[in-house]
C-alpha cells in the first residue's frame, strides 16, 4: 500500500480534521461579523478541560461537549463585551483571554482532579457506523464508521455555509462585517449581530477543544491543544472566509499531519524534526500563495461606534 495514500491514512485524516474544522468554522463566523478572536487557542483549552471534567463527573459525552460549548460561548461573550461594547482592541483582549484561558484550564483540572499518580480517564466517543454505508467494501469502514462528532463537523460546515450565503441573517451578518455603518443605516442591529456571531463562534471553538479529550485521547493534559487553535485561525485565511474552502484546508492540513507519521516510519534518513515541521512549512507556503487576493471582511478588528463621524 502506498505511503501517501492508504485507507488508514484517510480514516486518520478525518479524525484529525475535526478540531481544525470546527474551530475554524467558529472563527469564520466570528470574523465574518467583523470580530477577530485570537483567544481561539485558549478557548479550545477551556473547552477541552470542561468537556473532560463534565464527562468524567457525569459519564455523559453529550453533556461534556455541551458544557465545552457553553464554556467557549462564555469566554467569547467576555471577548464580545470588551471588543464590541467597550470597543477595546480585539487583538489585545483576545491575547489576554488566551493567556487567561490557558491558566484556567490548568487551574480547573487541578481543583477538580488534584495530583494523582494515575490519570483519570474516560471512554472516548464510540464509533457510530452509518447503516448500510459502513458495510460498503473498502470505503465503508474508512468513511462511514466514525464517531458522531466527525459527521457533525461535516454537517456544521454545510450549515454554516447555508447560514452565511443562503439566508437573510447570513447576508446581514456579512454586511455587519463588511460595512457596519451601512448595515446600521439599514436597520440591522450591529452590536446584536456581532454578539451573536462571536458567542456562536466561541461555542464551536469550545466544541473543537472538547473533541480532543472526548474523541481522541480519553484524558486531559495541559498543552494538549498544541497550537491547533492557531492553525484553525490560519485555515480561515486559507479558506478565504468560506466554509467549503475551510473544509478543504482542514482536510489538507490533517492529511499532512497524519502523513508525517507514516513517512517517519519509512524515511529514516530524514530527520524527525524536519518531518514534524512539515505541516507548518506547508501552512506557510500555502498561506503565502493563498493570501494573495484573499479579502478579509472589511471591518474586521474595527470597533463600531454609531456616534463616530464617518
Amino acid at each position, binding site marked *: 500500500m502506498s505511503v501517501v495514500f492508504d485507507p488508514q491514512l484517510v480514516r486518520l485524516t478525518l479524525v484529525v480534521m475535526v478540531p481544525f474544522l470546527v474551530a475554524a468554522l467558529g472563527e469564520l463566523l466570528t470574523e465574518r461579523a467583523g470580530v477577530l478572536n485570537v483567544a481561539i487557542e485558549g478557548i479550545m483549552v477551556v473547552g477541552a478541560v470542561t468537556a473532560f471534567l463534565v464527562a468524567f463527573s457525569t459519564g455523559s459525552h453529550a453533556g461534556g461537549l455541551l458544557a465545552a460549548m457553553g464554556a467557549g460561548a462564555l469566554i467569547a461573550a467576555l471577548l464580545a463585551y470588551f471588543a464590541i461594547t467597550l470597543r477595546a482592541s480585539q487583538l489585545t483582549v483576545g491575547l489576554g483571554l488566551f493567556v487567561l484561558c490557558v491558566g484556567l484550564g490548568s487551574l480547573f483540572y487541578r481543583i477538580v482532579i488534584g495530583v494523582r499518580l*494515575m490519570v483519570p480517564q474516560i471512554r472516548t466517543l464510540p464509533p457510530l457506523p452509518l447503516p448500510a454505508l459502513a458495510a460498503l467494501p473498502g470505503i465503508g469502514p474508512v468513511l462511514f464508521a466514525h464517531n458522531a462528532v466527525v459527521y457533525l463537523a461535516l454537517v456544521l460546515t454545510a450549515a454554516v455555509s447555508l447560514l452565511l450565503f443562503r439566508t437573510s441573517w447570513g447576508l446581514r451578518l456579512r454586511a455587519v462585517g463588511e460595512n457596519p455603518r451601512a448595515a446600521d443605516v439599514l436597520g440591522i442591529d450591529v452590536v446584536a449581530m456581532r454578539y451573536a456571531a462571536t458567542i456562536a463562534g466561541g461555542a464551536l471553538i469550545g466544541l473543537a477543544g472538547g473533541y480532543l479529550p472526548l474523541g481522541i485521547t480519553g484524558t486531559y493534559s495541559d498543552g494538549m491543544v498544541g497550537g491547533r487553535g492557531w492553525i484553525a485561525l490560519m485555515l480561515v485565511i486559507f479558506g478565504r472566509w468560506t466554509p467549503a474552502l475551510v473544509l478543504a484546508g482542514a482536510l489538507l492540513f490533517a492529511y499532512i499531519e497524519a502523513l508525517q507519521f507514516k513517512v517517519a516510519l519509512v524515511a529514516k534518513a530524514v530527520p524527525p524534526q524536519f518531518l514534524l515541521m512539515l505541516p507548518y512549512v506547508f501552512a506557510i507556503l500555502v498561506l503565502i500563495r493563498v493570501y494573495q487576493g484573499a479579502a478579509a471582511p472589511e471591518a474586521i478588528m474595527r470597533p463600531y461606534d454609531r456616534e463616530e463621524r464617518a
Partner: protein
Amino acid sequence: MRHPVRVIALLFILTALTGAAALPGQGAPAKLRVAMILPGTIQDADFNAVGYVALLALKNTLGVEIAYSEQVAVADAERVAREFIAAGSNVIAFHGGQFLTIVQKLGPAFPNVNFIMESSGRIEGLPPNVWNIGRKFYQGFYTLGVLAALSTQTNVIGYISGVRLPDFVASLNAVKAALREFNPRAQLLYTFVGDQNDPVRARQAAESVIARHADFIIIQVNLGAFGVIEAAKAAPRKVLWTTFYTDKYTLDPSRFAASLLLDFTKPYREVVARIQRGERGGYYEMRPGAGMSLGVIRNVSNETKLRVLQVFNDVVRNTRQIEEITDRILE
C-alpha cells in the same frame, strides 16, 4: 552604680546565650530547604508526578523544607533557580535531563548551594557542589524489548518516543539489541513525535504503526501515552503496550503488558541525606535495582513472564551487559 553594672552584665549574658542559640554550631549544617524545578505539571501522573512524590518524601522522611516550581521551560529555569536561592533555598533540584548547562553555570556562582541534576550518566568536570543522578533508562527498556520480542505474534513492534534525547536514543538501541537477540525476525517501527506530552500526535503515530501490523507497542512518551493507549483500544487486533515511570495497568487491563517503574524517592532521599551529612557533590546511578523496577507483567504467557524476569534480574546483577549508544540509531 552597682545595680546598672549588674543589669548590663545580665543583659550581656542573655544576649550571648540567645545569640549562641540562634546561630548554628561550628560545622553543623543549616536546615535544608530543597527547591525542585520541574519541566512539566505535577498532575501528569508520570515523570513530573514521580518527581513531586520524591520531593514530598524528602519532607516526610528527612524533615527538610520544600518548595517547587512546575512547568518551567529550560529558558526560565536559571531565573527560577536564582529566585529560589534568593528566597533561602540551599538545595536546588532540577528534575529532568535538560538542565545541565544551567547547573554548570550556577554551581560555581553559588558555592554554598547544593544542586541536584539528572542526566544519562556520569559527566566529567561538574562543579563540586553538584549531585548528578544518572538515569540508565536503556537498561530497563532492554527488558521491555525482550518482552516485546517474545510476545509479538505479527513480528512487528511499534516504538513511540517523544523528543530525540540521548537517553531515549540509547533506549531505542537497547530495544533493537533485545529484538536481535530474542527474536531476529521481529521488525521495529519507531517514531519520535517531537513532544513527550501530546497525546493527539502520539495517537496518530500509534495508528500509523498499528496500520503496519504492529501488535506490541513500547511507549516512551509521558502524557502522550494516553493517545497510544486509545489507538491500541481502537485497533482491529489486540495490541499490547508497555509504559514507563508509573504503572498504567488500570488504563486498559486487557492490553497492558508491563511498566518500567521509576522511583525517584530513592535517589533523592539518598542524595539529600548525604547533603545533610555534609557531603557536597557526587553521582548516583538510577538503574534496574536502584530506583528502577519492572512492574507486574500481564497478558502474556507465564513462560514469557519468567524469561523476562530472568533477563531483568540479570540486568540488575550486571551479569548481562547492554551497550549504551546515545549518539545514533542503529539500523
